């Protein structure tokens, strides 16, 4: 499962742009919402500039 750390997140939206499932990630005003469509591919975890996203096993 993808875990977004709100304390680290700087709400830049970069991860949304690389998500291959498109509809599974959304930048709300200042937080990330991950929906059920997420395939745990982890592409976004490498893109986040501050390390706020982690794929949890």
């Amino acid at each position, binding site marked *: 499962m993808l875990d977004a750390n*709100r304390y680290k997140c700087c709400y830049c939206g970069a991860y949304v742009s690389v998500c291959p499932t498109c509809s599974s990630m959304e930048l*709300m*005003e200042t937080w990330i919402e991950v929906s059920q469509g997420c395939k745990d591919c982890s592409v976004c975890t490498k893109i986040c500039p501050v390390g706020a996203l982690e794929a949890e096993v």
Partner: protein
Amino acid sequence: MLSVNRYKCCYCGACVSVCPTCSLELVETWIEVSQGCKECGICTKICPVGALEVKA
């Protein structure tokens, strides 16, 4: 239970300033409610945008 609608919240911190039990915290851009909340409802009347509600 005190619920914070984060789609409405504009993170101004007004609710924190009136909480008699010091149970609210404005963490950067969201409100955290701690267990000390007595559901008195004062904050719900102070919030300028109606983001707080005491729900049964």
